[in-house]
């Protein structure tokens, strides 16, 4: 057995697998958030309580945290390697001629999403997890925050940035795993765009609905 080296391709596998895992998580999260649109406020409270107390979900929380950590760390490691690969920059460069903006700025969009994630953990996860939220349950915790215009604005902008990140990340993960060719490329790209619109649009619409109501 030859020594398994963590080559750049291996790091990209890790990036792709953790990315796909987080892509599935986002869909589950959106599913729970959609309950906020229901007139029965207890529905969201019950779902929220379930997510904070179910034993299987509690184990998955650590797996999720690991998924985020692996995705972030391998992203940073690859960015450092990539930066070092070109010590002298071009005096004139026109990257927009041959590559999309989101594909060239994954570390930037990823970093901004991480900042939002920290804010999000502080505002929601912390209270829901430790049950120190306001009276009226988690529904009130959420709707109170979406009464604040600038919080709603930060939230929507963050999800638009996440949408751009996902639009490249979705199809790129299949390429990194080798599950791509000229036939599948079109399918992954379309599916990625539809998925990104659902995630960015879905979370944003819920936030705006709560703000205007």
């Amino acid at each position: 057995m030859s020594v398994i080296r963590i080559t750049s391709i291996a790091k990209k596998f890790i990036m792709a697998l953790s990315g796909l895992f987080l892509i599935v998580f986002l869909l589950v999260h959106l599913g729970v958030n959609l309950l906020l649109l229901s007139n029965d406020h207890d529905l969201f409270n019950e779902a929220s309580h379930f997510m904070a107390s179910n034993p299987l979900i509690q184990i998955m929380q650590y797996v999720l945290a690991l998924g985020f950590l692996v995705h972030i760390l391998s992203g940073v490691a690859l960015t450092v390697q990539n930066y070092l690969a070109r010590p002298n920059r071009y005096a004139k460069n026109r990257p927009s001629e041959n590559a999309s903006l989101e594909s060239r700025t994954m570390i930037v969009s990823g970093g901004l999403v991480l900042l939002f994630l920290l804010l999000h953990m502080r505002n929601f996860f912390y209270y829901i997890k430790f049950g120190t939220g306001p009276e009226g349950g988690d529904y009130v915790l959420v709707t109170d925050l979406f009464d604040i215009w600038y919080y709603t604005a930060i939230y929507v902008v963050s999800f638009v940035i996440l949408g751009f990140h996902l639009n490249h990340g979705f199809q790129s993960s299949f390429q990194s795993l080798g599950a791509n060719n000229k036939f599948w490329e079109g399918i992954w790209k379309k599916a990625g765009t539809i998925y990104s619109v659902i995630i960015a649009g879905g979370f944003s619409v819920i936030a705006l609905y709560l703000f205007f109501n």
Partner: protein
Amino acid sequence: MNLTLKIWRQNGPKDKGRMETYPISDVSPDMSFLEMLDVLNESLVAKREEPVAFDHDCREGICGTCSLHINGEAHGPDRAITTCQLHMRKFKEGETIYIEPWRAKAFPVIKDLIVDREAFERIQQAGGFVSVNTSGNTQDANNLPIPKVDADLAFDAAACIGCGACVATCKNASAMLFVSAKVSQFALLPQGKVEAKERVLNMVHQMDLEGFGSCTNTGACEVECPKEISLDNIARLNREYLCATLSSE
């Protein structure tokens, strides 16, 4: 045509280098880009100045020797060509043209616009070959039945001329398109399958050792490649690498 050239000048590998400006007049739109540089060099020599060093060989677009990052793009603004096939009619009267060497840690500058691309040679030596017994009774390659689709794909990958435009244009200075072409041209054929696992593991290891970046799947390399090597090859390289890693003994 009257043009202003901004050219990277560097006396040697240890020199810091700088951009220098050269006005040039009476350039014919029918000249190739390299002929335009020849004219500039003749005028520099006439003035007893050091001519601009740049790589060139066949000037027919097949050898991969000419390089040059022109106005922010590898091989200039045209598509699917090398610099020797780029013509001055692609530029406007009075335009300022930036001419720089390929920039990558793995491609150190030797002088002016010439870079050392031996990193590609070392990757090839790590596995970009098939071992054939040449004792005299070598079997005719045509005896092996190969599906037309595979033969065509292998030929498309083998069209890579190793010019380094993929590295030059990639934001990460990644050599994945080059390595994927060299792995694919053998992986698709029965002759190459024998050493496929060893080949992909060794070539990828060497690629990393040389200091190239990783692949962010931006697709810039495919756009700038003079031989239009497809990104499908990178997916195939990833597949080959995954299978080889999981099954190597």
